[in-house]
């Protein structure tokens, strides 16, 4: 059975989605147990698979039993094994959170919500697992279509934001597909490893078609991951989505797309083509610097809590793209460690924001007065996430920034170092402003008591919301404490990236 693990990870949510859509209409109460069981199984198998990969190296799973390059295969190395755990954990925690959130936000469409939710997770897992360039496009479509629908299920504004996302997302996917088509014209293969070998072996580095293919694929993926200035769709889509939707989309979609970019760079095109032959590293790192600064400044201008968080995602995407493109091993390790830790940081922030909005009905930062007293545990989770975003040890945010900055120093890219420090400073301003507002209650005691009567729900959110939030906050500390183990795994993968590897 152990050699079937990769398939089981993907099949559990897929079959659960079918079961929910078949049974959910008649017996609504079976949805949730199915969702939780499937995601739990997926998580357990992902952990087992990581153990397998860490011990025995790369795992290849041939779908349909066809060997490379005739069929489609899954390829699992430590990087995507880690990401599988991140995806399943985040979606499981969000599923628990959605017990209350989804029943209030989309009460009459629960079966559809959970079907789409599970298909989204299936799509993201498939994107992470696959070793085939065209198959990746199919799973990107599954993940995108479900996200469009999940966002649009909420309100009128969400429908508009989702429409915007549909247009941008379709453009991104088309660019990617066109790029894969160009690769196929020159190589005749769709398997990622196979394309990489052909590019290296048959002297295609000078080909104009391959160059344009790389540009098309990169632009497509950058649109999908909201890399500044292609981020236009993200803030509204994530801010107006139902809270359980934004909790699963915000941490996962951008991170999985960053992973896909890594796969394309390292396996398909190869580091020697991108870093030694083209020497694009400085250009893209400077683009990342602009993304970090712009994202941080735009976050500073927001008073809506969720909107502010979405602009922070834009800045964080800049961190990861910059780190990956630094052409330096330490920076790459930092970037991928940041993929893992940022998924949990974003999840923690969105869970906390969702819980606050659910309890108080208030969306803006100035309205958050006295929250530390009303919902202390929620704010504990929010504070840990905020400190991690700023980069205070021992949270994971500190370690990822540490690796990123030391990598940038090794590579001698001081612009990126300054941008990272600048963004940490902005994060400090942003979060301490919230802490200050939330720590002190309103000055006028009469006004406050009157307000508590009108809002009705005050105090801590239900346990199904608070639990995932606190578990995520604990994860932030655990990922920080066990950073050595995670970094060892990432280094194990980096060592397989080809003969030249990284400069420096």
């Amino acid at each position: 059975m152990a050699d079937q693990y990769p398939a089981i990870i993907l099949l559990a949510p897929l079959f659960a989605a079918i079961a929910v859509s078949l049974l959910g209409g008649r017996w609504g109460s079976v949805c949730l147990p199915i969702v939780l069981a499937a995601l739990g199984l997926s998580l357990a198998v992902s952990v087992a698979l990581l153990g397998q990969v860490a011990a025995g190296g790369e795992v290849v799973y041939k779908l349909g039993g066809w060997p490379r390059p005739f069929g489609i295969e899954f390829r699992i190395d430590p990087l995507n094994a880690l990401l599988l755990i991140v995806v399943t954990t985040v979606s499981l925690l969000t599923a628990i959170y959605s017990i209350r959130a989804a029943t209030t936000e989309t009460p009459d469409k629960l079966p559809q919500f959970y079907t789409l939710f599970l298909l989204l997770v299936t799509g993201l897992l498939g994107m992470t697992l696959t070793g085939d360039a065209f198959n990746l496009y199919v799973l990107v479509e599954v993940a995108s279509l479900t996200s469009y629908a999940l966002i649009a299920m909420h309100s009128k504004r969400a429908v508009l934001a989702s429409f915007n996302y549909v247009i941008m997302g379709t453009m991104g996917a088309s660019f990617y597909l066109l790029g894969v088509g160009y690769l196929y014209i020159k190589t005749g293969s769709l398997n990622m490893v196979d394309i990489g070998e052909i590019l290296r072996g048959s002297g295609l580095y000078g080909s104009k078609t391959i160059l344009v293919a790389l540009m098309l694929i990169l632009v497509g993926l950058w649109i999908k991951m909201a890399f500044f200035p292609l981020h236009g769709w993200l803030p509204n889509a994530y801010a107006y989505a139902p809270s359980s939707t934004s909790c699963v989309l915000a941490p996962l979609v951008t991170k999985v797309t960053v992973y896909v970019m890594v796969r394309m760079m390292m396996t398909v095109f190869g580091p020697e083509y991108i870093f030694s032959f083209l020497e694009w590293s400085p250009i893209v790192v400077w683009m990342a610097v602009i993304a970090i600064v712009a994202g941080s400044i735009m976050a500073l201008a927001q008073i809506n809590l969720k909107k502010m968080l979405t602009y922070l995602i834009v800045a964080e995407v800049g961190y990861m793209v910059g780190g990956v493109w630094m052409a330096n091993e330490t920076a790459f390790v930092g970037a991928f460690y940041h993929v893992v830790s940022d998924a949990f940081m974003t999840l923690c922030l969105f869970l906390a924001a969702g819980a606050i909005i659910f309890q108080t009905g208030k969306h803006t930062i100035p309205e958050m007065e006295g929250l530390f007293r009303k919902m202390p545990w929620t704010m504990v989770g929010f504070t840990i996430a905020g400190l991690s975003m700023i980069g205070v040890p021992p949270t994971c945010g500190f370690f990822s920034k540490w690796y990123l900055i030391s990598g940038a120093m090794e590579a001698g890219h001081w612009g990126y170092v300054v941008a990272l420090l600048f963004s940490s400073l902005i994060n400090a301003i942003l979060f301490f402003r919230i802490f200050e507002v939330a720590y002190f209650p309103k000055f006028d005691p009469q006004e406050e008591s009157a307000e508590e009567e009108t809002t009705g729900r005050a105090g801590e959110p239900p346990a199904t919301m608070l639990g995932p939030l606190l578990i995520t906050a604990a994860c932030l500390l655990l990922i920080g404490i066990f950073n050595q183990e995670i970094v060892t795994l990432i280094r194990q993968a980096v060592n397989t990236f080809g003969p030249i590897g990284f400069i420096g």
Partner: protein
Amino acid sequence: MKTLGAIAVIITGALLLYASEDFPSWGDPHSPANQYRVSSHYVQNSFGETSVPNMVTAILADYRGYDTLFETVVIFTAGIAIIAILRGPIDKRVRLRLASERKMRETNLILAQTSRILVPVIQLFALYVIAHGHHSPGGGFQGGVIFGASLILLALSFQLQTALDRVSEKKAVTLAAIGILIYAGIGFVCLLAGGNFLDYSALQVLMPVGAIEARSHGILGVEIGVAFTVAAIMFAIYANLSSHGRMKGGL
């Protein structure tokens, strides 16, 4: 904004032209896509390995069957997405108004009688296309679309309700889910029978045929699954879009 868009379009177009300079010439039998071992393997061995004369079907449903499974999931997702977005709770007032609207609509005699004759023929042809995917152009997607079109014709020439009486929206979603269940289920049975996911040759333990024939039967099974999903979702999407998600009235 318009200028920005124009600049982006011009740059992209220029890049595409720049890349095409390096393309192999049109229809060149020695181009990488034609010469590399993947396509030549398919051309030379697909019948021997899958016992399916139609090479396209062999690639679509077997060599790259996993892609096709998720293409089917994409169609299913599109249907669920449209239902999730458009479908709202129908309040009584709207329902009454729509009921009165319905009375006013009359069915055209010629249209109704023609489609009454056509629909069974179309559906029979759809089944033929599905079943004949092994030997001629066709298969689950094409046959499913034709079958879905027959239901849409029914709704167009009579009323949406006429078609919904035969296949309600709930039934359509159930059928679509069953389609994916058939596809993924066959794949999973392969896994239980000792092969990898979607390795139909493992089905030989359940059938009195050899490994290669088992692949051919597996392909037919998944094509039927695809047809279920495509036909049901085609109709569900039409029903939702034509009635603004109210499932009453229609075009």
